């Protein structure tokens, strides 16, 4: 039964993409949405079927989903749904403006579906080698999406993304090989030696030198895809040049997919080496990412780059929280992963809306949206405040939990610096946001019609994020609790 569901989940977007490739107009939109709906129902069915402390398996254990995997899978489906919902309006405008060629429409939807398929594969596979294959595949497919409009800047961004992403993820392959080698004296050269569940069960017997080296390479390799400083240089380019719905997927879930892979290595390292080695590295690189992202956010002139640097900052915060460990910080991390994904995706969608309406992504051009674009502008302003962590946004609660959790775990210096950096980021986002909403508007391109669907898809996710700051429904709280248990499974 599960074999079938997983098969449908992966094959629906792949086949849908093959059908969509040569099509255009309403037909391709219909095909893409239909294929996605099939995959989404399979994905959500699978994710909700995962019991709290157990796992769902398929294909003789080749696919194995625990609560953390189910969470990543569910978020992927939700963010992809938002991005796909926004795509027809965005793509039609690009076609009308001549930024996309007519033939690119089918290619866009096909690549979009394939990108979603690779993202979905990441939390499914149990084998660390196949996990690597899936992450590398996300890079290759999304590199084509980043440069789809053929402008010089987009080509530059896509090229950097492809080369740096491939080299970075190459190091993650080394990490995988070293993890495999560290197990050979225990498991022999068996084919399931790369299975994460198997590695976890024998972690204390792994060769510690190889395991240490393995985690360092995993941090550099998957850290490149997560956007941790100093491996982040491709991120602002790719996330700002991609079509906005793709930016939403990139910033919302592809970073989380890579973080998921890094977490797997972290857990093996903690189980094999004790908690201090990998945790300290995560705290240091997390803090470094937050510190480096801040000045770029303050002095930023491009709306989508502002959002991209904010992703670097939030990934740093998450890495740091995972490094802190302990029940409070890990609960904060678990919820923050989801809130950031949804908020950032919504922000990229509203930024795309504004960029099309103003004909520019420059922050100096996008002003006075209160009058010119009340829906998208309001969503952007509100979203920026929530992203910064203004109460009652759920992100205030999660950031607070991570910082306080760090102090209780003895990382008071890192937690204090993080609190300071978060406060500065909030000010930076609030200043940019207020200029966007209230600033003096220059000449605006012809106002675009407000459509109800757009208002719904921009406002509803933000309302959810705000509500989650005040109240967490029971099933979600239970799920977060089991994710926290997985994140802190050992070494606490």
């Amino acid at each position: 039964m599960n074999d079938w569901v997983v098969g449908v989940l992966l094959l629906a977007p792949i086949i849908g993409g093959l059908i969509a490739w040569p099509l255009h107009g309403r037909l391709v939109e219909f095909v893409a949405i239909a294929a996605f709906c099939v995959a989404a129902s399979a994905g959500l069915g699978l994710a909700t079927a995962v019991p709290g402390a157990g796992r769902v398996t398929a294909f003789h254990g080749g696919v194995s989903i625990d609560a953390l995997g189910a969470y990543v899978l569910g978020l992927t489906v939700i963010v992809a749904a938002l991005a796909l919902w926004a795509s027809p309006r965005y793509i039609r405008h690009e076609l009308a403006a001549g930024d996309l060629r007519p033939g690119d429409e089918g290619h866009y939807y096909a690549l979009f579906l394939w990108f979603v398929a690779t993202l979905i594969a990441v939390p499914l596979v149990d084998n660390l080698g196949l996990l690597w294959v899936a992450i590398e595949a996300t890079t290759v497919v999304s590199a084509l999406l980043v440069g789809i409009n053929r402008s010089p800047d987009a080509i530059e961004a896509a090229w950097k993304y492809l080369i740096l992403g491939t080299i970075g993820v190459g190091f993650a392959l080394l990490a995988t090989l070293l993890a495999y080698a560290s197990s050979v004296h225990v498991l022999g050269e068996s084919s399931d030696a790369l299975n994460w569940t198997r590695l976890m069960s024998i972690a204390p017997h792994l060769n510690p030198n190889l395991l240490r080296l393995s985690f360092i390479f995993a941090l550099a390799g998957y850290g490149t895809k997560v956007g941790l400083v100093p491996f982040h240089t491709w991120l602002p380019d790719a996330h700002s040049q991609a079509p906005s719905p793709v930016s939403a997927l990139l910033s919302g879930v592809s970073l989380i997919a890579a973080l998921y892979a890094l977490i797997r290595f972290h857990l093996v390292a903690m189980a094999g080496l004790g908690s201090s080695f990998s945790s300290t590295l995560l705290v240091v690189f997390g803090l470094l990412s937050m510190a480096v992202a801040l000045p770029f956010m303050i002095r930023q002139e491009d709306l989508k780059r502002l959002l991209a640097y904010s992703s670097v900052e939030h990934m740093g915060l998450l890495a740091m929280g995972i490094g802190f460990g302990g029940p409070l910080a890990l609960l904060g991390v678990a919820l923050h992963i989801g809130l950031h994904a949804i908020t950032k995706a919504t922000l990229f969608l509203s930024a795309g809306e504004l960029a099309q309406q103003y004909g520019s992504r420059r922050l100096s051009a996008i002003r006075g949206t209160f009058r010119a674009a009340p829906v998208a502008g309001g969503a952007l302003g509100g979203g920026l405040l929530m992203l910064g962590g203004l109460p009652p946004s759920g992100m205030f609660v999660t950031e607070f939990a991570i910082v306080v959790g760090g102090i209780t775990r003895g990382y008071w210096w890192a937690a204090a610096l993080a609190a300071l950096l978060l406060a500065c980021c909030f000010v930076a986002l609030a200043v940019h946001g207020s200029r966007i909403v209230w600033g003096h508007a220059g000449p605006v391109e012809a106002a675009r019609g407000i459509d109800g669907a757009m208002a719904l898809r921009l406002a509803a996710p933000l309302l959810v994020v705000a509500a989650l700051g005040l109240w967490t429904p029971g099933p979600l709280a239970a799920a977060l609790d089991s994710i926290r248990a997985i994140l802190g499974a050992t070494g606490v």
Partner: protein
Amino acid sequence: MTFTAVDAARLLDACSTSIVLIGVLIAGTRSIGRAIWLVAAQAILLSAAVAGVGLATGSNHLLLGSLVTLSSRGIVVPLALGHILRGSPVRQERNPYLGPRLSLIAAIAIVFVAFMAVDSAALGGSLGPVSAPRALPASVAEVLTGLLIAMTRRKGLSIVVGLLVFENGLALTAFSLTYGMPFVVELGATFDLLMVVVVVGVYTRRMLTVFGSLSTDQLRNLRG
């Protein structure tokens, strides 16, 4: 005459040493076409070493892996890159950040340091019946040489050649550390590599139409 574990080990040692030497040559050449064929030669040597160990240990998945390596890295990828090269006006790496002579010296230094520093016994390089002490230091040297090439060249295709040297180094590491990964992982990794080459082809064509050259000097607009 049978092919024994000792023969396989000698073959693996010889092949990995030659692969490193070819890597040094790639670092020292200006001609992109020659670099592509040298990368292909590396892949052929790699697949020969894999086949040797497969014969000695009687493991079918290694023989199959050797065929996959030969056909993808040894034939399809170089042919595809050669095709891209023919479609572009660039044949030579004009003014790299590090000239051919300097990168030759740097590559030799890398090889020297890698062979001095990497002790394969400490990293479990003597796994299984076949013990080839030069394979692991060679693979580390090859990975670093690939990084050196990718970081110091300006032309898009030269950077991709560096990337392939890096990937050959990874494959050699995989093989010398663990005698290959599970076959399905190797297939997946090969598929990804082929896709990377396809995407490189797409973007080199776009770079040619938009910028009129393959020089990555054009790619420095995005800052801050």
